[in-house]
């Protein structure tokens, strides 16, 4: 065994990111590491590359225990990593990137000719014949990725970790990178392959390990797995207090919004979407399937290249969040810390932010009115805090999320988009948010809910739309909204 990991643990304040994880890697295999957001993939990798120090467990490389202190140290030990982006420097030449830190020198000065010769020799091993004097940035992402692999292999040479290396590549480029990976496998390297593209996992890898919530779920030969089983492993079925699917009783809804042919090249294929008044539409799919991108299009965060949006009164302008808000839309983003809250402002200030922006800064909301609003929502949403002037950054994730929700509710939108509303929230707050969604719908608000947790979608949705590979592929209603059906739709291959 080339690399053996036993009972690896890593804790961060408040969370156990890795809980006694086992993992092993043979020489000459490609081993997929799978899991949804927060499963612990990147923590595991960072423990291997020296970005984090582990808290417990052993890591054996070639039978000897190792404890990488830094990326450079991990490279010396033989572990190289290629990330999705930011591996190399686009402003340096190909040769400089390949030889950086190991430039051949004559009389203390860099010997450019020797450097270029060695760089060309390195690339020749990968069947590439490039002008090594050109800036790296002038080459396509696929070529840059192969150059990054070449550098990582030259520096380390035993274990190669590929962290989502194909996320920004098209089909032909993926093939190029895969050929390189296969040739490295034949040379006897152990390769860890992290990806959320299941097609690629099945095409390339020999074995699969699935992580979920910091625990290892399974390690198996890729050939012995089918898609549905794999997705079950990845998504799990954890939520205990599964609310019954009661939405069916609500019956059909009067139409309100109609989006047709909305799409953006390279981001999301054109899709149609109708949302009724008081309806909850759920978006299901794996990471990277285009869920968030769909929502961003609807909210004007990214502009659509095609398509129209209309309501009963006529066409809507969705070219910017500002115009989407004017049309009565709201958006609770996935990245709460960076996109949702303003950490240094108080709860009150966070709540009135949207309302004030809509009124214009020349007409401040009277302080008494601000206080009334803040106190009202703190009570209604049961935000646990010592007072409205507390810095929002000091609240727990669940309470922060309630403040973000309060900000939108204060503006009384007719269509609210919730992107992973329960991510990073404890179970109690989780149930409250689900209950709140039901309340809002009863008041006639329409919602679009994005979630990786299938049970949560089932609990709140009237309809579930399934996305795969940046495309809306299925729409489930009524009795079809069941875990098995959703997972099948996520798993189905193009042919099916």
């Amino acid at each position, binding site marked *: 065994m080339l690399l053996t990991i036993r009972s690896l643990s890593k804790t961060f304040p408040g969370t156990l990111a890795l809980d006694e994880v086992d993992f092993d890697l043979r020489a000459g295999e490609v081993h997929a590491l799978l899991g949804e957001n927060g499963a612990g993939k990147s923590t595991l990798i960072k423990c291997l590359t020296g970005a984090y120090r582990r808290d417990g467990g052993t890591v054996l490389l070639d039978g000897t225990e190792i404890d990488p202190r830094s*990326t*450079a140290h991990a*490279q010396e030990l033989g572990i190289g990593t290629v*990330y999705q982006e*930011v*591996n*190399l*420097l*686009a*402003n*340096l030449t190909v040769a*400089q*990137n390949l030889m*950086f*830190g190991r*430039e051949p*020198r004559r009389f*203390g*000065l*860099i010997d450019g000719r020797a450097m270029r010769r060695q760089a060309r020799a390195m690339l020749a091993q990968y069947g590439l014949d490039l002008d090594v*004097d*050109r*800036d790296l*940035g*002038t080459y*396509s*992402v*696929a070529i840059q990725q192969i150059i990054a692999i070449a550098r990582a292999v030259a520096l380390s040479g035993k274990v190669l970790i590929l962290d989502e290396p194909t996320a920004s590549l*098209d*089909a*032909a*480029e993926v093939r190029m990178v895969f050929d390189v990976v296969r040739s490295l496998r034949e040379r006897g390297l152990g390769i860890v392959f992290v990806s959320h593209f299941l097609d690629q996992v099945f095409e390339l890898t020999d074995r699969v390990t699935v992580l979920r919530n910091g625990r290892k779920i399974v390690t198996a030969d890729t050939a012995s797995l089918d898609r549905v089983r794999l997705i079950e492993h990845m998504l799990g079925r954890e939520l205990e207090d599964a609310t019954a699917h009661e939405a069916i009783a609500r019956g059909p809804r009067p139409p309100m919004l109609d989006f047709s042919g909305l799409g953006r090249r390279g981001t999301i294929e054109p899709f149609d979407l109708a949302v009724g008044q008081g309806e909850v539409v759920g978006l299901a799919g794996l990471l990277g399937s285009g869920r968030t991108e769909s929502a961003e299009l609807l909210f004007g965060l990214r502009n659509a290249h095609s398509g129209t949006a209309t309501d009963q009164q006529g066409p809507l302008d969705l070219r910017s969040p500002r115009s989407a808000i004017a049309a009565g839309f709201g958006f609770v983003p996935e990245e709460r810390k960076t996109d949702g809250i303003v950490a240094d402002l108080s709860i009150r200030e966070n709540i009135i932010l949207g309302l004030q922006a809509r009124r214009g800064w020349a007409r401040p909301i009277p302080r008494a009115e601000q206080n009334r609003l803040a106190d009202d929502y703190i009570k209604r949403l049961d935000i646990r805090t010592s007072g409205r002037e507390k810095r929002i950054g000091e609240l727990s994730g669940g309470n922060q999320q309630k403040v973000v929700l309060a900000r939108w509710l204060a503006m009384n939108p007719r269509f609210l988009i919730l992107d992973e509303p329960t991510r990073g929230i404890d179970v109690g707050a989780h149930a409250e948010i689900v209950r709140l969604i039901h309340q809002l719908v009863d008041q006639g608000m329409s919602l679009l809910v994005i979630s990786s947790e299938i049970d949560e979608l089932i609990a709140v949705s009237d309809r579930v739309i399934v996305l795969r590979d940046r495309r809306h592929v299925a729409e489930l209603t009524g009795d079809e909204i069941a875990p098995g059906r959703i997972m099948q739709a996520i798993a189905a291959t193009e042919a099916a």
Partner: protein
Amino acid sequence: MNTRALPLYVTIGIFLLAYLVFWLQFPNILSTRVVGNLLTDNAYLGIVAVGMTLVILSGGIDLSVGSVIAFSGVFIAVLLRDTGLHPLAVFALLLMLTTAFGAGMGFLIDRLAMPAFIVTLAGMFLARGAAYILSIDSVPIQHPFYQALQGAYWLMPGKGRLTLIGVLMVLTFVLGMIVAHKTRFGASVYALGGGEAAARLMGVRQGRTTVLVYAFSGAMAGLSGIVFSVYTGSGYSLATVGTELTAIAAVVIGGTLLTGGAGYMFGTFVGVLTMGLIQTYIVFDGSLSSWWTKIVIGILLLAFILLQKGLLKLSQMRLAQEATRGT
């Protein structure tokens, strides 16, 4: 062709074109006298611009250099007036001082993760203030060694004078080219300017590189101060106000990207000469106000910023085209 070198070619092209146009009007402008003066008059600016180029390549900025030059002049003048030290000893002392000053700023920038703009702005006031403390008056330098330095030149054919300080500037540029393009330290500087995260991943020692970059700039500012004191024969705390901005302008006109990571030391040399040439032309013309220099430099700066933006767009478009052809 590699788009990275295009700004350099444009800089050289503009310089040659300007020279040609001026030559058609004033054939004398090509004489070795003018060329010699171009080097001499801009020696202090060129030397400080060498340091500034490295700083900007690393993605930083050094606003303190103008004040450091003034401080250096006053420091030298006061020490030569009040002590019996030989000028060479004073030079050595001064260079140690300014290098340490730069290193200190680099250390703060790195350790406190502070913007270089703020730290070197503080350094600018500090150095200027220190110069005032030494003397608020212009202090003449009357050491025989200085007269020897000022009188040192080589008479070129055509009676042009190639002065010591002019030669020193050219040598400084050669040194700058070697440091920037031929050493691992230089490669680290480009790497930092290209992106700190990627640079760290590639093994750049960020702290050490940052300290060295500002130390180098401090040393160049000190050297420039020496040259300026030789050039003017005095030390004055109000001298070279705004020279840091002129140096930045020379670097950008020389084709270096203000955000760091791309550019050539030689470009800055041409940038300094271009700015000097415009000044020379205005002197030749005689009827133009010297403020025209500023206006032309402003226009040139704007043109270069636009050129760099355009090039960025162009290379992105070309990349997109290649990507579609690939599929």
